[in-house]
């Protein structure tokens, strides 16, 4: 196998590893700040008499907010790269700028939302505010750094592998935009379930969907003392976070792998010159096979759960 192809696959593995970390830390950041879907319950709690010590940050939906951090990071890094700054410096500086925005929005979102609930006797706990900002920024930094690095590698994948024409046609900031939206959509779809269905209502029976009458009545007490966001992160980091990371990691793995294998088997690599419909066809064929396999696994999982857990037996 040509050295260029080996390098191409090696860089793809780096991207996959970064993708796993990006989405895992995205989910942990959303758990730390209580962003996205489960936030609706944190927002509702004081209105049903459940005054709490949660961080209440819903800047926007996760896809849009993560798109903002990633695109800001990517754009600043891109400008610095154009000035000749090394990527090792340009990317972290870009990400730091994005995180500055993140922390500003987190502060205004939390203080604005909680002070708006004064009529429900919900205080603004300053220790909750100060104590949560650093983990939010830290998780956000790692997530954004990974997304920006993925975009940087993809936009220079060809150059790094010795086949310059394989650089992705989309510019670096646009790739940050795409992966920011995608990472947010995944974090919102997968990781939020563990926080929203399980951790947020842990004093309710396990194994059932959370009934409408429970809404707002969140679990406010921890193993010791009053529950705060840090207790949620440590719990979700054991299941919801890694699951979310695996989701994005698998998407990047299968998407890139099928395209690269198609290009290799179709004879497009390592020269990467001219056209090859065979390469496209093989990539499509592999993709369809993976989708069918995933569908079968998922349907069997549903059947297994129905058989093992059985019908609903509660009141």
């Amino acid at each position, binding site marked *: 196998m040509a050295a260029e192809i080996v390098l191409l696959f090696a860089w793809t593995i780096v991207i996959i590893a970064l993708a796993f970390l990006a989405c895992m830390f995205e989910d942990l950041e959303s758990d730390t700040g209580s962003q996205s879907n489960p936030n609706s319950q944190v927002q509702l709690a004081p209105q049903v008499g459940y005054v709490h010590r949660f961080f209440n940050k819903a800047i926007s939906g996760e896809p849009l907010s993560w798109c903002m951090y990633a695109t800001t990071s990517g754009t600043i890094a891109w400008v610095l790269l154009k000035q000749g700054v090394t990527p090792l410096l340009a990317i972290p500086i870009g990400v730091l700028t994005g995180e500055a925005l993140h922390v500003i929005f987190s502060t205004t979102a939390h203080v604005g939302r909680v002070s708006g609930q004064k009529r429900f006797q919900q205080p603004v706990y300053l220790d909750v505010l100060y104590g949560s900002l650093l983990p939010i920024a830290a998780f956000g930094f790692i997530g954004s750094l990974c997304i920006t690095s993925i975009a940087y590698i993809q936009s220079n994948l060809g150059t790094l592998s010795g086949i310059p024409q394989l650089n992705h046609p989309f510019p670096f900031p646009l790739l940050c935009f795409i992966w920011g939206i995608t990472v947010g959509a995944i974090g919102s779809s997968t990781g939020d379930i563990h926080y929203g269905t399980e951790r947020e209502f842990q004093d309710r029976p396990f194994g059932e969907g959370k009934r409408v009458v429970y809404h707002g009545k969140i679990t406010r007490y921890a193993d010791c003392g009053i529950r705060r966001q840090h207790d949620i992160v440590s719990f979700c980091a054991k299941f919801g976070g890694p699951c*979310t990371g695996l989701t994005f990691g698998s*998407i990047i793995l299968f998407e890139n792998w099928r395209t690269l294998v198609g290009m290799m088997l179709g004879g497009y690599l390592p020269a990467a010159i001219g056209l090859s419909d065979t390469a496209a066809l093989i990539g499509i064929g592999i993709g369809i096979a*993976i989708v069918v396999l995933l569908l079968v696994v998922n349907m069997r999982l549903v059947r297994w759960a129905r058989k093992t857990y059985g019908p609903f037996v509660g009141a």
Partner: protein
Amino acid sequence: MEPTILLIVLVCVILGGVLASLGVHLLPVGGAPAAMGTATGIATGAIMLMFGSALTGLFTAATVAMFSNSIVLVALSGAVGAMLMVSIIFLFANVTYIFGAGCVPVSGRVAVDPITKELQTPYKTPQTDGHGLPSVCLISGIIGGFIGGFGGALIYFALINYAKLEYAMAGVLAMGIILANAIIAAYNIRGTIEGFHDPKFRTTPKALLVCFVASLLCGIAIVLALTTGVITGGAV
């Protein structure tokens, strides 16, 4: 630019926009209630799920467009990319529901799964609108991802190969058109939808008509911009 080419660009933009809207209606979307296991579907907005999956498809379509001139193959690459994205999300969402929260995936809108014929109501938690992603939602969602991804990649291909726009410009325009149509579809859905078996799916033709008009306007704007030289061809 030749009128035939402009007409092809217009048709592709309209078709892509309408397909994106149809795709949104087929995705099982539960929004915020789904994150609490109070509604069936994926726990995010319809717009964001479609946008995220179509962008993943667009990423692959852009790569494939580098070595293929076939509109069908590039559009199919985008469609399979979007389909892969939603399939993986569905799998891990169900893993989280089943192993993280102990919930059985069940539909809240139908008593019997129209595909597997499995009973749904006995497994549903009272006072919820279902939870998780039952088999029918998986199939409907995968079809939705395919259609939406196909539409997005079709617009992108038309813009780079016929309108001869730069890659980034074509990508941004395709994303904008997908987003506009997804928002119209989300207005029609009004909250949550489970897929083709959901009674709300019957209102799809209305949304498709509106999306046709919206995409037509987008297409006319692109054609005008091309003919007046506001946006010009790039390095393709």
